[in-house]
C-alpha cells in the first residue's frame, strides 16, 4: 500500500469497527440479547479485516514517485 492508502486503511479500520460496535451495543441492549451484540461485533471485525488486510487496488492509487537510482560515483583518488 502507498502512504495515502495506509492512512486510508487505518481510518477505514477504525470507522468500521467503531460503527459496528455502536450498532451492536444499541441493538443488543434493545433486544436484551448479549449474544446478539457479540455476533454483530464479529461481523464488523470480519468486514474490517476483509477491507483492510488484502492489498486492494484502491489503496494503491497514489504511487510514491521515487527518484531514479543513482549510479555510485567513482571515489576520487586521494592525493
Amino acid at each position, binding site marked *: 500500500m502507498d502512504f495515502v*492508502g495506509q492512512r486510508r486503511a487505518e481510518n477505514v*479500520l477504525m470507522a468500521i469497527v467503531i460503527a459496528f460496535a455502536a450498532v451492536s451495543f444499541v441493538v443488543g441492549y434493545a433486544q*436484551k440479547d448479549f449474544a446478539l451484540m457479540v455476533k454483530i461485533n464479529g461481523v464488523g471485525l470480519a468486514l474490517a479485516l476483509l477491507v483492510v488486510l488484502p492489498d486492494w487496488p484502491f489503496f494503491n492509487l497514489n504511487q510514491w514517485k521515487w527518484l531514479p537510482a543513482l549510479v555510485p560515483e567513482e571515489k576520487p583518488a586521494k592525493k
Partner: protein
Amino acid sequence: MFSAKAVYGNSARLRDGKVQTMHSIWHRANSSLTFFGTVAAVLCLLTTGTDFFHESNPSVSLKLHDVRRLVQHHGSKEHAVVTFDLDADLRDVFSWNTKQLFAFVQAEYETPENRINQVVLWDSIIQQKPPRPPPPPLLRRGDKAYIRLNAHKTKYAFIEPGRYLRNREVNLTLVWCVMPRVGAMYTQQRVLPAGKLP
C-alpha cells in the same frame, strides 16, 4: 486519531518524513485485532454500566412449613429437621448482562453466645431461559427463576453447634447473587421472620 509518531517513534519514518504504519499485512492484522480488542473492552464497560440502571423488585414468600424433629446429638449439637415453603419470582432480576443467579435460603437467629448465626439450608443455580423463540407453555413450566417449593426438604442440615435451637426465634432469608456476563457481581436479599422453633 492516533499520532503515528507517538506510536511508532522514528523507526517507521522515511528520511523525507513519510510514515509507514500499515505497510504489511501483519502490521494491518495486528492493528485490526488490537483495536477491536480495545473497542470490545469499552463495550464491556458500557454493558456493565447498564446494570447500574437495572431495577427489580421480585416478590418473595418464604416460611417454615413444618419442624419435623429437633434433636440433640451427643449432648452438644442440636439438629432441626425442617421443611419450608418458598415462592419467589426472580425472573425480573435477570438483565441482558446476567449470566446466572445463585440463590440460597439461610436461617438466621441470635443466641446468647453469638449475635448472628446463619445456616444455609438450600441453594440453587438459576440460569436464564433464552428469550427467543417465545417459549411454549412447556418451557415456561421449566423456568427455574420462578421458584415454587412446597414443604421442601432442606438440602443441608440445620445444625447448631450449641444448645440454643430450642424456642429460638428464627428468620429465614432468601439471598440471591446476580452473576453478570461482564462486570461486577451484586447480591440482594429478603429477610422474612419465620417464628419460633419448638
